[in-house]
């Protein structure tokens, strides 16, 4: 009963002193706003990383055999780098034994890639593009859709015919306003005929996936992608079901350990990378982001708490007479304590609610004007509001207890 009464009283106070209340709430409001915004961005990026980006880089139910992980950001020990640098590369000769060891129904592909300049008769100077030399079921594993033209034929793949399949950006840059299929582009001084155009892959964090050129691995371009022509960057394996992942990975590992003549005590000097292992780096980044997502709002909330405490102390001083009156009329200490605690909590909860609204707005704004994706997490809204109320109660304790301890006679005498 008194509870509802106290909330009503607090809301009346806020309504009566809008400007003052607004400034009181500012700290909590900003704190919660940052909390919601940062968490939304972390959450959005996480979802993006987990569902889209990694899925795009490494297909479903698939893993990549590489000499070292290619997705590897975050902080890394220099000694780890050193070990990576000393690892032997993978060679095209490794492909056959690895593929032979895989269970039936498994898809595989070979890929080497690098950035090279490309050009055509239809546009100006050469431009850099991501060039991949591929073999096997590359397009099927990556789920690339060809919207114009066709895939490589088995003969082209085997013979190394100079043909290419290109992304939308390459079409726009090298063949502006033209149909690309059947036309030629030049890489490493040699002409390649476009046989297919890929559906747009979109972009992530500002990086386009459409500036790509694919050629058969056996075509001359593979010589330009690595220091030694026979080096390959990865063997991609896709098993039919998730349950076969471990088994397939283990078989590939054993083949490679034998080929690299590793003794049982020696660790692998190659990497088997899955979507999950690629996610590890993201989880590392996420930890820092979450830390920032906590530190930033925490500062706001601490400042907010101090402001609320001071405002409440002023309120207690200003309303000493009111406290005296209430006591004379029968308010117990607990009643006065509750009244001021609820007032502080209401004040800061209103601030937190405002912060939630602004935070959602900020997250939406950021995802609209920048490539950062943002998803508002329901839990962050709940935590934000709860934090607001908590901050209010904590910062209200001291002023409220001072109010409740006031001597009614002295309080009544105050002007």
């Amino acid at each position: 009963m008194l509870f509802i009464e106290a909330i009503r009283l607090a809301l009346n106070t806020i309504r009566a002193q809008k400007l003052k209340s607004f400034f009181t709430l500012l700290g909590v409001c900003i704190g919660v706003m940052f909390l919601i915004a940062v968490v939304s961005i972390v959450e959005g990026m996480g979802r993006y990383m987990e569902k889209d980006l990694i899925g795009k880089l490494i297909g479903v139910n698939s893993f990549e055999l590489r000499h070292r992980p290619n997705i590897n950001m975050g902080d890394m020990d220099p000694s780890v780098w050193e070990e990576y640098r000393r690892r032997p590369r993978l060679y095209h000769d490794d492909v056959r034994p690895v593929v032979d060891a895989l269970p039936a129904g498994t898809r595989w592909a070979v890929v080497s890639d690098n950035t090279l300049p490309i050009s055509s008769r239809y546009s100006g100077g050469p431009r850099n593009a991501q060039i991949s030399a591929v073999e096997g079921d590359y397009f099927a594993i990556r789920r690339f859709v060809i919207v114009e033209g066709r895939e490589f034929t088995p003969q082209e793949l085997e013979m190394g015919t100079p043909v290419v399949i290109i992304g939308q950006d390459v079409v726009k840059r090298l063949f502006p306003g033209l149909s690309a299929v059947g036309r030629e582009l030049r890489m490493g001084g040699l002409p390649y005929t476009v046989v297919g155009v890929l559906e747009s892959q979109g972009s992530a964090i500002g990086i386009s996936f459409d500036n790509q050129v694919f050629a058969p691995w056996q075509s001359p371009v593979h010589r330009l992608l690595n220091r030694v022509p026979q080096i390959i960057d990865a063997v991609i394996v896709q098993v039919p079901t998730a349950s076969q992942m471990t088994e397939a990975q283990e078989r590939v590992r054993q083949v490679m350990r034998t080929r690299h003549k590793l003794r049982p005590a020696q660790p692998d000097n190659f990497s088997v990378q899955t979507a999950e292992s690629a996610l590890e780096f993201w989880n590392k980044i996420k930890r820092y982001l979450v830390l920032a997502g906590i530190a930033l709002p925490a500062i706001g909330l601490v400042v907010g708490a101090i402001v609320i405490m001071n405002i409440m102390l002023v309120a207690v001083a200003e309303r000493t007479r009111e406290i005296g009156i209430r006591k004379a009329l029968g308010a117990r200490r607990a009643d006065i304590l509750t009244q001021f605690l609820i007032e502080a909590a209401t004040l800061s909860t209103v601030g937190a609610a405002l912060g939630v609204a602004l935070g959602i707005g900020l997250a939406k704004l950021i995802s609209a004007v920048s490539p950062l994706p943002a998803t508002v997490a329901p839990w962050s809204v709940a935590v934000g509001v709860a934090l607001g109320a908590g901050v209010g109660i904590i910062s209200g304790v001291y002023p409220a207890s001072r109010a409740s301890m006031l001597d009614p006679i002295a309080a009544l005498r105050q002007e």
Partner: protein
Amino acid sequence: MSQFTEGEVPLSTTAERQAVTAQTGATPGRDWVIVTRGIKREYDMGGEIVRALRGVDIAIRRNEYVAIMGPSGSGKSTLMNLIGCLDTPSAGEYWLNGTLVSSMKDDELARIRNKEIGFVFQTFNLLPRATALHNVELPLVYAGMSAKQRRETAAEALDRVQLTSRMHHKPNELSGGQRQRVAIARALVNKPSILLADEPTGNLDSQTSQEIMKVFESLADQGQTVIMVTHEQDIAAHARRVVALHDGQVSSDTRRERFLEEHASAIVAKGGVVG
């Protein structure tokens, strides 16, 4: 100051008090709303002891209308605060309705104030931001009454002081007399056993003072116990009994007739008994 003369009924002499306590054992009887014994109140002003009350014995029956009179600084407010359970004595005992309240804890005193005491102050002491109705509701809030019942009860109390039409006005939209009537409605809304008024007309003009005195009179007629502090003889003359304080002690305790007789010349000089 004279002591009681024959014919008067001395109500708070030592003999009377002893009679009362002897009759009922340790606690005074039910008829006696207030019984104090040797009440002292001292303030320590940085080493210097101020003796505001130096041993006061008072006994007040149910339905009495008593004025506590005395010059400024005589200890009236201090006594009022003690009777109103806003304060506890440095020494002595105080029974309210047969209950020893002088040794009670803070929260118990708050309950007693809520249930047994109705305060009327010189400066009204209404909450400035609350409506008349809400001000009158306050004691009921602390009594734990439901919102709906509270509103009805408070509205009735305002009706009794003819302020129904001003129910939703804030104090600054009311005249002094109206404010004091709101305060009276608030004091009575919990049906307290005593109405305590400290200089209730101190901030009012004589016309409005008369009005308020009439309200007190009619309350007393209806059986309400009223205790009123004043330093004005003509206001005190409205009460049916006058207890005079001097220097922290009771100097006289007289019935109205006797009081009027003794102070006739002074009251006549001021233009008669108000009301």
